[in-house]
């Protein structure tokens, strides 16, 4: 009889995450590293464009 350990639970988690990532890459706009923002936002001269937990309905 198999004894359920943490390894088993983590295995399921990573399987789900891997499946979700595969779906996401297929369903989302293609990745394009040549159009990626500069490595550091600080000093980039660009406005912050991500979304955060503190974001309201409009995204900021």
């Amino acid at each position, binding site marked *: 009889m198999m*004894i*359920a*350990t*943490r*390894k*088993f*639970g*983590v295995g*399921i*988690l*990573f399987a789900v*995450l891997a499946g*979700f*990532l595969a*779906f*996401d*890459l297929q*369903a*989302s*706009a293609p*990745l394009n*590293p040549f*159009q*990626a*923002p*500069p*490595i*550091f*936002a*600080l*000093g*980039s*001269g*660009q*406005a*912050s*464009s*991500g*979304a*955060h*937990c*503190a*974001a*309201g*309905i*409009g*995204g*900021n």
Partner: protein
Amino acid sequence: MAISAGATPSPEMPSSKLTRAALIGAALVLVLMVAMFAGARFGLLLLIGLGFGITLEGLRFGFAGPWRAMILRREPAGLLAQLLAIALVALVAFPLLSSNGAELTGAHAPVGFAMVGGAFVFGVAMQIVLGCGSGTLVNAGSGNAVSLVALPFFAIGSFLGASHLGFWTDLGTLPVVAFAGSTGLMLTLSALAAVAVIAIVIGKPGTRMLPRRLWIAAALIAALALANLVVAGQPWGVVYGLGLWVAKGASALGADLGASAFWGSPTHAERLAQSILTDVTSLTNLGIIGGAFAVAVWKGGLAQRLPKLPPRAWIATIIAGLALGYSSRLAFGCNVGAFFSGISTGSLHGWAWFGAAFLGSMIGVRLRPRLGLEG
């Protein structure tokens, strides 16, 4: 006894050198692949997330656990470590935000009825499952069964909370209040010091000093949070990414999110259209899970058996997971996005969150054993 919101101790058999080398190699390969295929910034954010996960799990720096220790046993060390980390971030973040307002944004959000109520519910729920926003990710990554069950419901709750956000904020919301500049920094540091003094005075003698690991953890967490701000242009957060993952799934299943006031707005619609490998909080969330997993493997902690809990404990875990996600969207963040990042970037809502969530935690610690979650 160390204060921890992470996994329970296990009969550990440290992993072999080969396993450890493979862990480091796999982490670096993943970071490089994201950098190559998505962009250097996104690879770096995954690396920062891994750092968060390794630090939180490896040095047992938590949020829910230390609050529990303060409430039940009057042990303030973990709470003091949180305040120290927040203060260290504020010392650098305030000047950065003042001088680079176009490139960097703080975790600024309004105080309101739903915001305060959401933080209160989050405090209750995080003590029931003994895992906050970051804690649930860390615990799930290290194989904690309660967090593994809570996590998907946390994500569903975050999606639903965001979808209903307009209704809740319409109940009454004040304008955003954000402290800034030297005066704002002094106010923030003074308030953090005042809370620390209260915690020390209330604290049980002999438990008031921070152990070495918490000094190190606080410094590392602060450094990583600042790196998050400098690289992403926004502070460390958790909840948004979880809700986004479910929103993507709902959209794929045919839900019309374009009609949602929240998910249909340009910023969020853009996030929905792009891969999670270009989303800040998604990347750091994945990194936290991966970092906690690496530490668990490193220490040989994955051999521990899953707990046998009564059905009511699992039902409570599911409900608490949903509540964690839903309430943290109403509260404009969890212990990370609102409490840690809100206060350290000057937002008044971070302080309101702290007070309300701590009150909720005082109830949550008493509910947890009644719900069968303490064996």
